[in-house]
């Protein structure tokens, strides 16, 4: 049963992830991303990490992809035209792919992966909270600041200054 569900969610996540990359219609791509996230959330549930699954759904599926769709619809983009590969794209893609391969290989070689826990003994809310507010307090704060800076950057970039408006 659990195996069957694992294969279902895993293939859902993978197939829709491929769909995100290959589909020419941006709406299809965004919905593929949504499906992929749902698949990943399903995998988290199978790992007894319900909290993680629902946070993923709430933040990414519920808000971020919805915003993507919102923007796509507002901009009314046509299906992407086939563009010839630029050399830069090719290099970036190769580098990214190589990094991924190295990452997976090193995980496979070095890390000790324990598969799942006994049913019903997944980490509770309390465990997450303790980890986030003690061990990982600094990284959490740093990520928060990073996001804040990104947000401020967007505001600064998108808002024309008064001088620029006068000049134009």
């Amino acid at each position: 049963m659990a195996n069957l569900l694992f294969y279902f969610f895993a293939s859902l996540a993978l197939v829709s992830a491929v769909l995100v990359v290959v589909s020419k219609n941006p709406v299809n791509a965004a919905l593929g991303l949504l499906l992929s996230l749902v698949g990943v959330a399903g995998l988290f549930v199978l790992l007894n990490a319900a909290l993680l699954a629902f946070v993923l759904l709430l933040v990414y599926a519920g808000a971020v992809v919805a915003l993507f769709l919102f923007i796509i619809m507002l901009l009314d983009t046509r299906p992407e035209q086939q563009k010839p590969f630029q050399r830069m794209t090719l290099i970036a893609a190769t580098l990214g792919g190589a990094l991924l391969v190295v990452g997976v290989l090193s995980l496979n070689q070095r890390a000790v992966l324990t598969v799942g826990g006994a049913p019903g003994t997944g980490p509770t809310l309390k465990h997450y909270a303790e980890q986030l507010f003690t061990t990982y307090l600094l990284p959490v704060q740093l990520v928060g600041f990073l996001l804040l800076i990104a947000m401020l950057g967007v505001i600064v970039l998108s808002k024309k200054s008064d001088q620029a408006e006068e000049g134009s």
Partner: protein
Amino acid sequence: MSALYQCWLNLPLVLQMVIKGLAVIGFMFPFGGACSLIERKVSAWMQGRHGPNRAIPFWIAWVPIFGPLLQRLGVFHLMADGGKMFFKEDPIPGHVNKFYFILAPIVAMIPALTTVSVVPFGAYVDAAGQLVPLILADVDVGLLAVFAVSSLGVYALILAGWASNSKYPFLGGVRASAQLISYELSMTLSILPVFLWVNAPGGSGTLSLFAVVQAQSGPWHGWSGLWFIFTMPVAALIFLVSLFAETNRLPFDMAEGEADLVGGFHTEYGSLKWGLFFVAEYSHMLIGSGVFVLLFLGGWNPLPWLPLATFAGWLGLAGNPLVVGALSIVIFLSKVLFFVFLFMWVRWTVPRFRYDQVMKLGWQKLLPLAIGNLIVYALVIAWVQVKN
């Protein structure tokens, strides 16, 4: 009775799930229909009309007093409407994106039917004297699950609006997505104080709705059964207003404002697909009302300062889990029904906001209020903890 329960436990897991799922569908669809009937009746009475009161099968018309009463209440219009919805022609306009057009109402049903499973709707006292919740899937993160899955409901509106490929549905979809995302923030922030309160240091740490009701039935500084609406009225208010916005009900029904958008996101829909959207809307209302009742109005506790266990004790039902369970369901459902009525009551009272007003209210009024409320309660709760 226990033999029946054993029989249930012996069923294969898949079959159990299928039965639970069918039970949800079998409950939600008629209830959604009933809500639409209540809506018609309530709106009629508030406007000095009678509302639907004609349809009646002839064999029931023969029943002396009962038949005419049912006719006056319009009960058979419910079935007539349902039948009409199923059998009328289902047009698909030529200009739509067919795949997404058909997908949208189905997507609308997913959160509507899924969220029920993590909302406890009653409780009974078992042999060991423990209060056991009646719930389909008792997960630790109950409320987060409700929020997470119901946040997927926005896709139905976006898809419907986009796939219809016409301007009014499109505007409706865009408005809906912006509005739902905006109000989700203040909604989530407004209930944080409740969980700060429930999860006192040293506790197990939970987001379960059952635990919230337990906290409202348990003792607190000599008071037993203090409802959170009395201790956190501002949080309750923010949550309620956001709930109205999240369920797309007036005065926030930007997504389908008839006056400016014809029918909004479902302009191009008809027959059963349109009906699915409405069942979904009413299910959202029901779930939202249920969550509000659980969070702020003591769930299945009959009255403030009167927990269910005490109440059952007064009635002499303490040793009777089945009756207590039924009683708790009745109490909970009547509270939810009151909220459904409140939704309609407000709908026929308050005019629709303008879109900029909706956005201003969400971002400039409710969100700062919710954050301030959270800070104040965090400080107060910390102070109380230190003092004890």
